């Protein structure tokens, strides 16, 4: 082998292979800590949101599911999000891209209130 070839075989190649293996195993730079597609759940039942306060990371999607036998809505008090009227078993999802505290309520039964804390 020539000296150049020996360098390639002995040093560059293994380094390249090692780097390839390293990057193959590591997560992508822009990944979030959640496995992608995971949804945080709020269950609507008995005229209440459960959990009443839900804490999620930035970028999380929250899904409200109405398990009550009466229609409800999930509407942010600061006009950030607004569901349509959810009849039994209907869902509404919203993805929180900014940190903050989001109060919401049911516009049909306003005593029903909840909070999503995004941090």
């Amino acid at each position, binding site marked *: 082998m020539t000296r150049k070839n020996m360098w390639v075989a002995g040093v560059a190649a293994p380094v390249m292979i090692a780097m390839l293996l390293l990057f193959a195993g590591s997560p992508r730079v822009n990944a979030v800590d959640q496995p992608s597609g995971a949804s945080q759940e709020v269950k609507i039942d008995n005229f209440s949101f459960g959990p009443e306060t839900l804490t999620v990371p930035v970028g999380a999607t929250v899904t409200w599911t109405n398990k*009550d036998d009466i*229609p409800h809505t999930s509407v942010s008090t600061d006009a950030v999000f607004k569901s349509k009227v959810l009849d039994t078993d209907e869902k509404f999802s919203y993805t929180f891209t900014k940190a903050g505290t989001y109060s919401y309520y049911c516009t049909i039964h306003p005593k029903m209130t909840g909070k999503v804390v995004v941090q």
Partner: protein
Amino acid sequence: MPDKKQDLIDQKLQDLNNDGIDRRGFLKCMAWAGTGLVWTMSGGIPMSRAFAKGHDQRSTKGGDFTFVQISDSHIGFNKPANPDVTATLQTAINKINAMSHTPDFIIHTGDLSQLSKPSEFDTLDQALKGVSAKQIYFVPGEHDMLSDNGEQYLQRYGKGTKGSGWSSFDHKGVHFVGLVNVANLKAGGMGSLGHEQLEWLEDDLKGRSASTPIVLYAHIPLWTIYPDWGWGTDDSEQALSYVKRFGSVTVLNGHIHQIMQKIEGKVSFHTAMSTAFPQPAPGTAPSAGPMKVPADQLQRVLGITDVNYLVSGRSLAVVDSPLGDSGSSASGISGGPGGS
């Protein structure tokens, strides 16, 4: 059941000076009223000779009249508490049509529909075409406001009304006011009338003689029954202050799907049964909402309200009738007499 009726009236007379009725009296009421009807009485109940005589004897002499209140038909609801609300509405209509007298008109105190859908309103209208009284007044419930702030509702039932659907009219010397307390509800709050409507109400009542009997009707109760479940109206105190000077005020509400009554001075409050499904008594369940009862009892916890106005006493006698009984089983209240 004339004997039982007489017993109840005697019981009431005995308790006229107390603030409530004693436990025996309460249990008597419960037995007479049937399963599922809840009574709340505070203050004495003035005895009404009108329904002691039996409210079927309707004298139509000079100005006496009757009207019927129905409420909470929830057309579109189809869960176990009542899979066929259209059928029970029809039973209510049949009951009205079977009365010995035709009521002058009907008042529907809201939650006409379950989801404000055009098809639901259509079904209701179709059913009501067969009722004996041809004049029907409506106020919306929160279930009727689900499409664009009640757009569908107002298109159909909002003629001649203002704002979110309030209005007033006079009938044979009695002044009726339909109020809307289900629009623009605030987070954490109960029912709400709002500034604009309150201003209109104050103006509407101005200058009327205090001897004019007043009837206010609205969906959510205009007195605080159970705040945890939103059973009340945040700004009703202001509305009630405008009617304080009148000699006879009757407040008719719905929303809670059970009978509750209260008399405060010259104001009589009354909530009606639903024609669709009952709800639990305050605090007896994890939440409000449809309450399932055994199928053979459903007709007894749904009902209509017959209101009889007597010129002589300038009073209104409110009598509730379950759908499933042959006659009225629950005695109502009589609005206070006279004025200045």
